[in-house]
């Protein structure tokens, strides 16, 4: 069981900044995120896109912003449960909560901050009859353990970076790898495209374009698929695995079952401190809604800051809190580090 002061669900910019603000008030945070790395959409969808409305940064790449936020909160030693989705919420008699992920990891805290953006990122599934029947029986949407595919035949569908990267990676491990894409052009890093072409020329992978998967066959397990090449040529290919990689789309998912007041696919909060209808659980950033809400990173930062004030009062009943300026008090990390302004030197001149 992981124990922490504030459990943050969602490791995007708002969640990461909440770690810093909580740290200033001596509260420790742990973050859960369905993605394998912190940064949320900024890291997953648009790391190379510039953002122009972060105060103090005329221009910053989304990926750089995440790196900066990580380094800003590092001294407060946040814990991470990555690649797992927060699934279940239980409330204990002492007022604390237990959150269990889809992989069974349990987290205990008195305060929860939902900073889940648009929800957790789930793979986009192609529209194919019987697809569900073969899930985990030959159809995978993510590659967690490549060894699973060792000496097997694999068909990958998709035209983006992940389809290209996994084609390259699996080429060495699998008996055969076939990449299928609806167009002749791929939308990926140029060197990945070149690498796939090189592997194709060496007969290490098969590339079939323009083609689409039409049907899946197999008794209990996936055995073969039907593909349509160039509109009118239909072909069946035997395979052990089919891995469709068509990107990710965010879903509110299990959070919608936790008992929150939901409006417009977002969690309603009180703008005093962004607390939800469940005392002790806050919602900050794009996942919340209130009158006048704007889904902007800078608004998420503000919400995270105010949320921490109330969280402190819940964790430290009876203690008075005074706002401290980092320019005056500096920043004292949980790792023993200390940052503060240099003291000005006063020296008298004796003549």
């Amino acid at each position: 069981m992981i124990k922490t002061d504030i459990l943050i669900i969602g490791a995007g910019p708002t969640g990461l900044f909440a770690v810093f603000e909580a740290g200033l008030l001596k509260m420790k945070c742990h973050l859960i995120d369905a993605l394998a790395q912190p940064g949320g959409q900024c890291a997953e969808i648009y790391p190379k896109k510039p953002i122009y409305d972060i105060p103090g940064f005329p221009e910053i790449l989304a990926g750089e912003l995440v790196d900066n936020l990580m380094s800003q909160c590092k001294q407060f030693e946040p814990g991470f449960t990555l690649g797992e989705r927060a699934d279940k919420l239980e409330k204990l008699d002492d007022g604390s909560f237990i959150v269990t992920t889809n992989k069974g990891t349990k987290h205990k805290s008195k305060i929860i901050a939902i900073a889940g953006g648009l929800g957790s990122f789930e793979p986009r599934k192609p529209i194919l009859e019987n697809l569900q029947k073969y899930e985990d029986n030959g159809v995978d949407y993510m590659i967690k353990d490549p060894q699973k595919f060792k000496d097997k035949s694999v068909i990958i569908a998709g035209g983006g970076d992940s389809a290209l990267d996994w084609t390259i990676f699996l080429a060495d491990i699998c008996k055969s790898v076939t990449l299928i894409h609806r167009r002749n052009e791929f939308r990926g890093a140029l060197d990945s495209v070149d690498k796939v072409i090189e592997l194709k020329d060496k007969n290490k992978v098969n590339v079939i374009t323009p083609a689409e998967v039409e049907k899946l066959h197999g008794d209990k397990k996936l055995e073969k698929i039907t593909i349509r090449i160039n509109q009118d040529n239909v072909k069946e290919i035997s395979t052990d695995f089919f891995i469709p990689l068509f990107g990710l789309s965010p879903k509110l998912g299990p959070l919608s079952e936790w008992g929150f007041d939901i409006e417009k696919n977002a969690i309603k909060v009180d703008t005093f401190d962004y607390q939800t209808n469940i005392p002790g659980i806050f919602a900050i950033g794009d996942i919340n809604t209130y009158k006048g809400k704007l889904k902007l990173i800078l608004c998420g930062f503000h919400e995270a800051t105010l949320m921490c004030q109330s969280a402190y009062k819940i964790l430290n009943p009876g203690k008075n809190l005074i706002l401290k300026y980092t320019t005056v008090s500096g920043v004292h990390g949980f790792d023993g580090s200390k940052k503060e302004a240099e003291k000005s030197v006063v020296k008298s001149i004796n003549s």
Partner: protein
Amino acid sequence: MTDISITIKDRTGKIHSVNAPTDMSMNLMELVKSYEIEDEGTIGTCGGMAMCASCQCYILSEHQLKEMGDDEEAMLSEAFFVKENSRLSCQIFITKDLDGLEFEIAPAS
């Protein structure tokens, strides 16, 4: 007068005739959001960067639109429910020559 009129068929088949400003550098996805025609979180997920296809639409009128950019074409090649008249509504900016445009919002995926 800087507004034009646009007709939008939503995912349930309901028709909405709306006024669209040409002086706000708004795109069709933002227009749909501004009138709250579809549920928040089901359209324009990536914010309008041609990176998610949640704002896919079908152009129903005969308007000549600006050609697709590489981003849009690549994203549509990975989207579902794609038809001949599919476009990403976030890539179509509201200009005077779009007056009378009709489009349908593609199913969510």
